[in-house]
């Protein structure tokens, strides 16, 4: 997902007997559905796992601006340009809400950015794929934001107050993103033969990378088990992926587009769509930094940060000068 394969403690979930009284009291609060707030006591593992997860989620939001930003100057009409600008601006806002949530855990935003820029922290694998034609912007809104919503809606109920509140805000804004993407797709499939072909091509390239967003099957992962016990991960990766396929297959059919997987069909017995798993070796390779756009994406982030340094310094110098003047008066 936006946060993929977040490492937790690496240990099996402790039973209540194995916990210290403090840990047991903490787990009881979570089990009772209470929200944990920044100044409350929390196990180190909970704090660290959340920092990784929220940080990775935040990084995904801001790196996610890049593939779409690529098309702002190339959008086919002024209206589409305005819509895309608004969407990309929303993503910056989402990144900001999430960095602020992470900061309540005791890490600064600059520290998180440093972790991203040095490659120690990751962002979602999906943003390492290029947006080659205008229909890709439709596919990104429809599929990528669609997958994001699927993950983020349950996270509104997560146990950490600031993260849960950030998710509430983000989910409110996110549905515009998916709908604008689907709207582009509808326009394309109702256009010329060449435009329909572009729409199909975009779906072909974004289908499997979208399925990868949920991460590999986590049914045996100790990290996932711990995160689910702490209610900072609500659903399994496979569960969310299935939900996504079930939701998306009829939407593709409505567009008259073919999902590039002949196994996608409704299974009468289960009531769910069957589908093929993506190529997980490709996923791990992209995570390792070998996707089509990893270098370009990270390079763009680092350059923006470094090129903006003089502006940030100037603003701080100006603020210091002003407050010194006020103090002198």
């Amino acid at each position, binding site marked *: 997902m936006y946060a993929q394969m977040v490492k937790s403690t690496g240990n099996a979930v402790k039973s209540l007997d194995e916990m210290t009284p403090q840990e047991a009291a903490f787990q009881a609060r979570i089990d009772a559905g209470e929200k944990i707030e920044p100044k409350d006591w929390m196990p180190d593992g909970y704090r660290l796992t959340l920092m990784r997860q929220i940080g990775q989620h935040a990084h995904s939001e801001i790196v996610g601006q890049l593939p779409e930003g690529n098309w702002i100057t190339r959008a086919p009409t002024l209206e589409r340009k305005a819509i895309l600008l608004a969407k990309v601006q929303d993503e910056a806002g989402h990144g900001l809400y999430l960095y602020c949530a992470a*900061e309540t855990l005791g890490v600064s935003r600059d520290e998180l950015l440093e972790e991203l820029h040095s490659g120690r922290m990751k962002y979602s694998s999906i943003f390492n794929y290029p947006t080659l034609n205008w229909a890709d912007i439709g596919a990104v809104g429809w599929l990528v934001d669609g997958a994001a919503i699927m993950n983020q809606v349950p996270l509104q109920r997560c146990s950490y107050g600031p993260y849960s*509140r950030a998710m509430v805000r983000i989910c409110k804004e996110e549905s515009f993103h998916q709908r604008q993407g689907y709207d582009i797709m509808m326009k394309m499939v109702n256009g010329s033969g060449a435009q329909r072909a572009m729409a199909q091509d975009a779906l072909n390239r974004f289908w499997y990378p979208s399925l990868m967003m949920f991460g590999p099957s986590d049914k045996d992962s100790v990290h996932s088990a711990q995160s689910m016990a702490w209610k900072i991960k609500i659903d399994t990766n496979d569960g969310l992926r299935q939900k996504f396929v079930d939701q998306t297959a009829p939407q593709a059919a409505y567009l008259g587009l073919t999902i590039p997987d002949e196994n996608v069909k409704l299974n009468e017995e289960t009531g769910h769509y069957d589908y093929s798993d993506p190529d997980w070796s490709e996923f791990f390779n992209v995570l390792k930094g070998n996707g089509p756009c990893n270098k370009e994406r990270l390079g763009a982030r680092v350059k923006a940060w470094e090129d903006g340094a003089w502006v940030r310094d100037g603003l701080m110098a100006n603020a210091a000068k002003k407050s010194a003047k006020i103090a002198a008066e």
Partner: protein
Amino acid sequence: MTNEMPLWEVFIRGQHGLNHRHVGSLHAADAEMALLHARDVYTRRNEGVSIWVVKSADITATSPGDKGPMFEPSNDKVYRHPTFFDIPDDVGAM
């Protein structure tokens, strides 16, 4: 790294005359910039008619450890609630 912009808390009053409500935080060099950023980040969809910003460092808060002594004394003062008093039905709405 040492020159990180300070954190500000943002409070917004919505359309309907309610209190300013905490909506989130942001980084800005000074108050003026914090207001502008708050406008851009937290009122993109008409969420507010007024914004307050205050430096996070200037907020004094209760700590979780004080929860008992701070808030529990009100538990045994049930007579502060109207439901404490039995008023006969014959009296009518009160």
